[in-house]
């Protein structure tokens, strides 16, 4: 189990990195390496050129302000331990604690996880939940993509050959928002069989004024419950409302595999989304009181 030979490149700027990707056939960018290197060890992936992004300073850095913005090489550990993010976007930290293990989060990156795009991965689900905008750069120039357009399908992103994900950003929710993240995996740190993320705000009467829900692990890419979210605005978040949300979550088309049936994934999605929604409601009520 040793990787096949490759030529190693260690650029220090984004310009050098995209030039190397444009110049060489069968070149792959190397981010944290927590998915690509296992695939190379197994020789599932045999790039001829490896463009190591770990020395590219401009790809690092996390900003929390009017927008929350991540350089693609921001390590999962930096998000997990960001005090600013714990205030502005606590769901991200709750979700990240389920990503692999301490040792893999120390190396693994936000951009790497998005490009790998495992259907059960937490980071793509979180970016889908926040309607993140992604910046891709190539030797020809740069463009912006919505997360919904980036995640094309099973482990398939909309990046063109030679394009590099450089930055991810989204607008934080109001300070009074509630959040809930739940997932079920056979062991802590394993890929989730199903996960559910909820963000919501309540109006002065306690009715839902804004809702976003995402289900991970069921479909080839994380799925937003857009129809339910639109109907939810103005609704009283009572038990019937939670039941309706759980029903919408279990209606997401689900994949079958050798270990888990589609029906079981949908069952989990309904339970987890109800739990995440209850948690989000509790947080929203608590925060509304604090900010009242």
């Amino acid at each position, binding site marked *: *189990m*040793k*990787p*096949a*030979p*490759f*030529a*190693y490149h*260690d650029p220090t700027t984004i310009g050098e990195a995209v030039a190397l990707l444009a110049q060489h056939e069968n070149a792959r960018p190397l981010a944290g*390496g*927590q998915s690509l*290197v*296992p695939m190379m*060890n*197994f020789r599932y992936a045999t790039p001829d050129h*490896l463009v*190591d992004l*770990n020395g590219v300073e401009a790809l690092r850095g996390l900003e929390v302000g009017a927008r929350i913005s991540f350089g693609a090489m921001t390590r999962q*550990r930096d998000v997990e331990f960001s005090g600013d993010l714990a205030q502005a976007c606590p769901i991200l930290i709750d979700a990240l604690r389920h990503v*692999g*293990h*301490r*040792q*893999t989060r*120390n*190396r693994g990156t936000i951009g790497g996880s998005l490009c790998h795009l495992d259907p059960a991965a937490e980071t793509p689900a979180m970016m889908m939940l926040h309607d993140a905008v992604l910046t891709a750069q190539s030797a020809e120039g740069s463009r912006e993509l919505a997360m919904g357009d980036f995640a094309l399908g099973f482990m398939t992103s909309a990046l063109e050959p030679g394009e590099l994900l450089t930055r991810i950003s989204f607008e934080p929710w109001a300070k009074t928002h509630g959040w809930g993240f739940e997932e079920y995996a056979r*062991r*802590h*740190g394993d890929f989730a069989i199903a996960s559910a993320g909820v963000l919501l705000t309540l109006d002065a009467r306690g009715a839902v004024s804004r809702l976003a829900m995402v289900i991970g692990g069921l479909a080839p890419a994380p799925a937003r419950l857009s129809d339910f979210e639109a109907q939810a605005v103005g609704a009283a978040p009572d038990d019937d409302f939670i039941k309706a949300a759980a029903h919408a979550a279990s209606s997401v088309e689900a994949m079958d595999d050798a270990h888990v049936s589609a029906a079981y994934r949908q069952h989990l999605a309904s339970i987890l989304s109800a739990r995440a929604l209850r948690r989000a409601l509790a947080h929203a009520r608590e925060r509304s009181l604090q900010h009242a």
Partner: protein
Amino acid sequence: MPDTRKITVTVNGQRHEAEVESRLLLADFLRHTLDLTGTHVGCEHGVCGACTVMVDGHSARSCLMFAVQANGKSITTIEGLAQADGKLSILQEAFQNNHGLQCGFCTPGMLITLSEHLRDNPDPTEAELREVLTGNLCRCTGYQAIVAAGLDAAAKLRASKAEHA
């Protein structure tokens, strides 16, 4: 022609220079080039945690890094945990006293993971220790004795810190 690089790596405080092939994993560099065979190689795809080492103070799987990526970095392996006089560290002693190892294959990774955790969280709960240990597989102990050793070491480290304060 293999693609090679010259690297300089500090391992357990000692500087090493070597010419390595790009595809050489850090784990194999430590074991085969430097003869530091205390770092164990189990699954070679980032699941078992036996090869965990510290890279610039943070735990990482050395089977998921290339040696060329360690250029200019400071690595701590199991060989670097004992005290300067060769005496076992408090954590190592706790493993011995609590029967925290049986076959010993997972132990290097366990010790590195717990060294980092106890440094950053001197007063961990049992649940926190169990969570951080999810990244290290042990097939002998059932983990009970490893968790006990971690809690024992945490208490002793706090006591020794208070004594020296």
